[in-house]
């Protein structure tokens, strides 16, 4: 345990944060400097997160790289207590990868690029913090920090969508509503995302306070999750208490995980957001929610979790099927991906709700796999959009001819998302199904059907957009830039790696899941 080991977790948080602060002093009008610097910073974080993931001793298990920094003593008792278990290790790695990819992809940001990277790095730092914080105060602190930059990131660098679909007919009868038309200015997307997510954190905050107050009856009140965990092991928290506090965490974090019916921020937000931000947000940020449910909800309030899981599994299944079905009739590339994220986060939620070791492992692996997959999709859509300024799949077509690489990478990501064996998506979803089969059979079957629905809209998307004869208006298109190729290739390799040899991940996740499941 050398000094670096000890401070590695702190570094994951500090390096991006320091990077953000330093970038503020870069010259304003030289976009590339900001970009290079951001690459430099995110590369360091990537290395650290890799080190952490590899350095995590899955044989020993439990919390590792523990470090406690005094922050506030009596009467509040808050320490900056950092530690990482198997689950966190995986997600830390995910964040490292996606952050790096997002920064690379953001080469195209030229306007106020310095501010952009400041916010992006701050976001990354917040995400790291949530994964490794062992104190409710700091968990929440970083959680909010991760949400904070989104408004500006989307509002300033995002893009609005105005989409008039012709009136739909059902059985030949014109319907009273436009089924497909929507009008989503970026301000709306940003504002909704911000308010809904912070709204979720209102519940979380109340829940945290409730925990604090409840722990008051047993010695000094505390925010330390370790102590609270001990207390709940000793049965300090009455079932009634758990039953009303757990939903606060379940919904509060669930909102960020895209839990139905609080998911609508996610498609609109992701569509409005610039590429890099969509990658980070769909790729990593949504995982914070699921992670929070596990780390705070399940670990601190096991009985409440057991009482509420039936509800959660229902919602998760709704996510899966509902998301897939609504994705089917979308015409905007990003909306399809946005809804598919909703659908895929459904698997994560289901896996959590199974309270089954295999299902939970699947949920965590799905977080990782979906993170990479959806980030790749957004990256490629961004590449296409940069060139065509169109995202309507009824207008796009035959891109395979003009943008072979982009199309190829996107196709791989799409196949991963429809759960094709050999790619990461399958292994994860399969584990979720396995867990669900043992616990909630009917919902498991629905979820499997949902996976089949995914195939429908993904194939529709591929067929419409990439295959076919290229429209002359795409004559002049250039293929993905070197940077985009690098990111795409790297992510595709990760997808393949996890799909073909998931053991390095599962063995790490398993120990984390083990310690969580030992409470049930």
């Amino acid at each position: 345990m050398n000094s670096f080991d000890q401070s590695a977790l702190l570094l994951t948080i500090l390096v991006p944060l320091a990077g953000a602060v330093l970038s503020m002093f870069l010259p304003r009008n030289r976009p590339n400097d900001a970009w290079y610097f951001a690459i430099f910073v995110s590369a360091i974080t990537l290395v650290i997160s890799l080190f952490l993931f590899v350095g995590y001793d899955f044989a020993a298990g439990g919390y590792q790289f523990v470090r406690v920094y005094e922050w506030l003593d009596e009467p509040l008792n808050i320490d900056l207590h950092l530690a990482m278990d198997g689950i966190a290790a995986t997600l830390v790695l995910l964040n490292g990868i996606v952050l790096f990819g997002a920064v690379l992809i953001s080469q195209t940001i030229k306007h106020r690029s310095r501010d952009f990277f400041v916010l992006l790095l701050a976001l990354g730092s917040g995400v790291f913090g949530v994964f490794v914080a062992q104190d409710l105060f700091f968990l929440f602190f970083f959680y909010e920090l991760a949400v904070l930059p989104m408004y500006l990131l989307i509002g300033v660098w995002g893009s609005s969508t105005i989409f008039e679909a012709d009136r739909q007919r059902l059985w030949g009868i014109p319907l009273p509503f436009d089924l497909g038309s929507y009008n989503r200015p970026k301000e709306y997307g940003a504002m909704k995302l911000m308010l809904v997510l912070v709204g979720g954190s209102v519940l979380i905050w109340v829940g945290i306070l409730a925990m604090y107050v409840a722990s008051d009856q047993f010695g000094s009140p505390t925010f330390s999750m370790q102590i609270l965990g001990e207390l709940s092991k000793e049965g300090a928290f009455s079932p009634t208490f758990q039953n009303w506090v757990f939903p606060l965490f379940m919904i509060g974090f669930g909102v960020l995980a895209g839990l139905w019916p609080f998911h609508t921020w996610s498609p609109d937000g992701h569509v409005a957001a610039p590429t890099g931000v969509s990658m980070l947000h769909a790729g990593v940020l949504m995982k914070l929610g699921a992670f929070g449910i596990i780390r705070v909800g399940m670990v601190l309030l096991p009985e409440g979790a057991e009482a509420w899981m039936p509800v959660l599994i229902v919602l998760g299944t709704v996510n899966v099927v509902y998301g897939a079905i609504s994705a089917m009739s979308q015409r905007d590339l990003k909306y399809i991906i946005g809804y598919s994220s909703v659908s895929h986060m459904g698997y994560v939620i289901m896996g959590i709700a199974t309270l089954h070791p295999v299902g939970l492992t699947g949920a965590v692996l799905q977080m990782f796999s979906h993170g990479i997959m959806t980030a790749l999709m957004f990256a490629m859509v961004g590449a296409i959009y940069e060139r065509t300024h169109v995202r309507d799949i009824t207008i796009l077509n035959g891109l395979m001819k003009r943008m072979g690489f982009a199309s190829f990478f996107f196709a791989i990501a799409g196949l991963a998302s429809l759960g094709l064996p050999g790619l990461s998506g399958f292994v994860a979803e399969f584990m979720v199904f396995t867990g669900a089969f043992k616990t909630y059979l009917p919902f498991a079957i629905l979820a499997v059907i949902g996976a089949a629905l995914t195939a429908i809209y993904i194939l529709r998307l591929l067929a419409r957009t990439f295959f076919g004869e290229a429209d002359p208006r795409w004559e002049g298109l250039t293929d993905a830039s070197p940077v985009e190729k690098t990111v795409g290739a790297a992510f595709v390799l990760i997808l393949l790696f996890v799909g073909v040899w998931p053991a390095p991940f599962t063995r790490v996740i398993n120990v984390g899941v083990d310690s969580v499941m030992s409470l049930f």
Partner: protein
Amino acid sequence: MVWAWLIPVISFAVVPLIILFGKRLPGKGSPLAILAILAGFAIFWVVFAGFLSATPETEGCATGVGTKALTCNFQITWFEAGIPGADTSGFDRIEIAWGITIDPLTVSMLGLATFVALMVQIYSLGYMHGDPRIDWYYAFHALFIASMLTLVLADNFLLLYVAWELVGLCSYLLIGFWHERPEPREAAKKAFIVTRIGDVGLLVGILLLWSHVGSFSMSETFAAVAGGELSDGVVTFSALLLFLGAMGKSAQFPFHVWLPDAMEGPTPVSALIHAATMVAAGVYLVARAFPIFSASDTAMLVVATIGLITALGAATIALVATDLKRILAYSTISHLGLMMLSLGAAGYTAAIFHLLAHGFAKALLFLGAGSVMHSTEELDVRRMGGLRKVMPVTAILFSIGALSLGGIPILAGFWSKDEILIAVNDHLNPVFIVLTLLTAFLSALYMARAMFVVFYGKFAEHFEHVHDAPPTMSITMGLLAVFAVFFGLAALNWPGAFDGIGYFIIYEKGHGLEFVVWLAAVSTVLAVGAFIYGYLAYARKSVNLEGARRTFALPLKIAEGRYYVDELYQWTIDRVVLSLSRFVAWFDRALVNDVGINGPGDITRGLGEKLKYHVTGYVYSYVLVMALGLIGLAIFWWLVSR
């Protein structure tokens, strides 16, 4: 024998090579793929020999569950999930293995797949000559055959499912290979989605079995089933669910719709994937999971019935279809139906036997059709005729395939079909045997039709310029033809060398070639009769069909309309699925979002707008409010202090 895993792995290995460097390799990497499969074919013989010499004492081998046949398993752990070190039977941990199993079924499938694949890939050299994306073509081919071989080698259901999906993907990619044209694009999508629906059943079935057995390993599952650890309900359900997957892949009614459209792909693909190997995977699955199926009479009956319906229906459509490849496609469906029927009738050996025989013959037929298309660029049989003049080799080889499949004695098809008839006759009620015989007759008839219309009768003049197939194509067809002719002899007992397929591919106990004279006679009569009638009707045109057409106008129309199954599907998708999804999308935006999420926000803002008017700007109103507040405060204070 352990080295069997090399067979797929080699082909897997060449895929990335071809994708990455194909453009720079000679022949755009096609030799690479062919060499890979050639190596696979070579290793197959090693494995075959090893297996024949293996005994239950051989390392890794044992007598299979519910069968006397030898089964050899070799595996290494792939990944595990759940509580580390927990007992898998406690369902808290799953352990998935890269595992191969080698038994007669596997061996025969290996042989068929490697051989036909080899033939087809060589054939493609000529057929796909000059295609700009030939490197991708061969990459997909290599990927397909690798997955197919994994599928037959897999020793646990999950690995099987993995391969199962991958072959589906390759079929998708190869059907849509010419994606510039809309039809292949749609056909590919259709194929993937329809099979995917079946796969849902398969996956659910697999997981259902796991949730009762606690393992994905086939041998353990079979052992559990044989040991009666599972309730009959579970067994039946899981069998049916597995069969759902099989129906999807093997294009059984009502999932057969994708196969005819799949003919939009390059013809060699149709030969390899949609005739010989992949579509047989469904049959293979049922055979592989036979311990489960045979444990449930309901399941068996369902399999048989579906098989019969498919066989009969497809045969009738094939009889009226006008597109050469579609005729073959429907005949494929029909024969797959026969195999299912035979399995349902406990005709395990017969089914596999027919699978192999049909594989060779149908591959041959498709390649023949391919060479016809290649030279004539024509598919509509009504515009063909007498082609034997210009392409004699193809004509002969095609005819051999047709006759063999039509069940003309001593050709391969005859023996296998006979076995099936016996099985049906023994295990199912008379209705089945009657209808089976009818199917047999029909299949002979449409084969005769295809063969005579295309190659015999009056020569269609506009094909003057047409010339015969290039050597790469004709040689491969020739080799296949040899099998189409002589493979049937494998049924016979050759003392010393090989005591008959009946003792090789066995379930429960082996038995030599049975020969029920009257059945053989009937089937022979039917087949020969069909061909004679076909000759008269289609080649000599001496029999006028108009009368028949008029009398059977309606059934004819229905058959030509392919029983309107496609229309039904189309309607469902357009009117039900898409409408539903549009509605959900609207619901999401208009209600969940604009009301559920925006609503509270708007209300709050509106509240603010209303509330702000309480600051009137008149100073006395401020004082008034202060005074009221003061009074309220005093009263409230008084209330709480008492």
